[in-house]
């Protein structure tokens, strides 16, 4: 019997040098569900929306409005990334509640990948808004002495983004697994309800922080 770390991702299959781990497969499943579900939901959109379409429009326009309030401008360019982050995180965080399923965000690689995408997006939108030199110059504001701190903050805030999501989701799953192993099948239900709340809140926090970071890069105030 070999003891495996709960923090390690199980490799389900190996494609050459590329190991396909459980979070990747779960993510593919989530992607499939979301894509197919979105396609099914948006097949017959009408000018006069029914209840299903109204909820869908409310979700999309609500996210867009939130982005617009943070950015202070047109939310359309950021909508695909930010809304996808939120939808994916909510789905991924809650997927751990399904029996036999582990949330992809409960392993460090997925939050790291999301944080890396946010990190890259921040600089992409910053450069696009101000140009390379203008964006680089924003790191030296308000004083040149702030340059090292700003550069350090770019790394630390991305790291904190990753760790916050990973720690909350992973700890929640650990607690639920421990309680279920020790106390029985139905005892962890209140904890699972709490985990639903935690999963949604963490998805919201991650998304809002990503939006704030990108908005700060676009707005020219320098790195937040």
């Amino acid at each position, binding site marked *: 019997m070999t003891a495996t*770390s709960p*923090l*390690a*991702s199980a490799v389900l299959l190996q494609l050459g*040098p*590329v*190991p*396909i*781990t459980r*979070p*990747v497969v779960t*993510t*593919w499943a989530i*992607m499939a569900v*979301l*894509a197919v579900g*979105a*396609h099914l*939901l*948006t097949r017959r*959109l*009408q*000018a006069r*929306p029914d209840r299903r*379409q109204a909820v*869908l*429009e409310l979700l*999309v*326009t609500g996210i*867009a409005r939130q982005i617009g309030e943070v950015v202070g401008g047109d939310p*359309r360019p950021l*909508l*695909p*990334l930010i*809304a*996808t*982050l939120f*939808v*994916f995180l909510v789905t991924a965080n809650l997927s751990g509640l399904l029996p036999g399923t582990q949330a*992809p965000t409960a*392993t*460090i*690689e*997925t939050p*790291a*990948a*999301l944080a*890396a*995408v946010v990190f890259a997006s921040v600089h992409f939108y910053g450069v696009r808004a101000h140009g390379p030199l203008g964006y680089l110059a924003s790191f030296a504001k308000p004083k040149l002495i702030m340059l090292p701190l700003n550069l350090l903050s770019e790394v630390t805030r991305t790291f904190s983004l990753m760790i916050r999501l990973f720690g909350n989701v992973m700890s929640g799953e650990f607690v639920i697994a421990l309680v279920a192993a020790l106390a029985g099948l139905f005892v962890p239900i209140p904890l699972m309800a709490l985990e639903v709340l935690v999963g949604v809140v963490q998805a919201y926090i991650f998304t809002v922080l990503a939006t704030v970071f990108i908005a700060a890069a676009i707005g020219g105030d320098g790195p937040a």
Partner: protein
Amino acid sequence: MVFDWWTLALQAVNLAILVWLLHRFLYRPVLRVVDARRAEIDGQYAATARAKAEAEALRAEVETERAAIPADRAAALKAATAEAEQAATERLEQAERQAADMLRAGRSTLAEERARAETELRSMAVELGAEIAGRLLADIPAEHRAAIWMHRIESHLAELTEAQRTELVAGTGEGTDGGTRVCVVTDSALPEPVQGDWRARLQAALGTTFAVEFETDDALLAGAELHFPNTVLRFSWRSALAAIRSELAADEHAG
């Protein structure tokens, strides 16, 4: 704890793919419908605003027209009054012109008729005078009347120059083949002694001898005419009346 970089990379790629999928199947269709509905609503708002603006403009136009009605009415009444006054003035002036023309024509006609009546009256007076004088002369014996006319003829011939007298008797002769005779026309037949006396006195007045024959013409009324070969000397009332009528006609045309 083992960090799998392949999983990180795959998850990053997965996120990118998911962004594209949801953008393709969720955000774009939903936003398209929302935008279409918003455009429709904006269009309806714009149409409503246009309709409202048109209604406001129409109301303003109606109010302007309604406000202008009294002024238009006053202007129309004023124009109609002015037009009526002008028409009345024109008709009055036209009537005055027509009356003046009629008065002028009447006066002209009256003057013409008066002138014509005067001419006729004068002519009648002349004829009446001639008739009265003729009747009075009829009571006088022919030899006495002939003496009067002969005296006048002699006076006239005496006033002529010698050349004129010679011109009068040019072409005359004494007898049947000596030349043309001088014809003496009187209103009534002269007795034979008077004829001999006239013949002698004419030859004496003209200073030559020539044949003289006598004829009568009632149209002369009174007096005599001497028909020379080249001219006629009239000492009759017919010629006098004709001269008077010519003068009257000349006066009438001059008037």
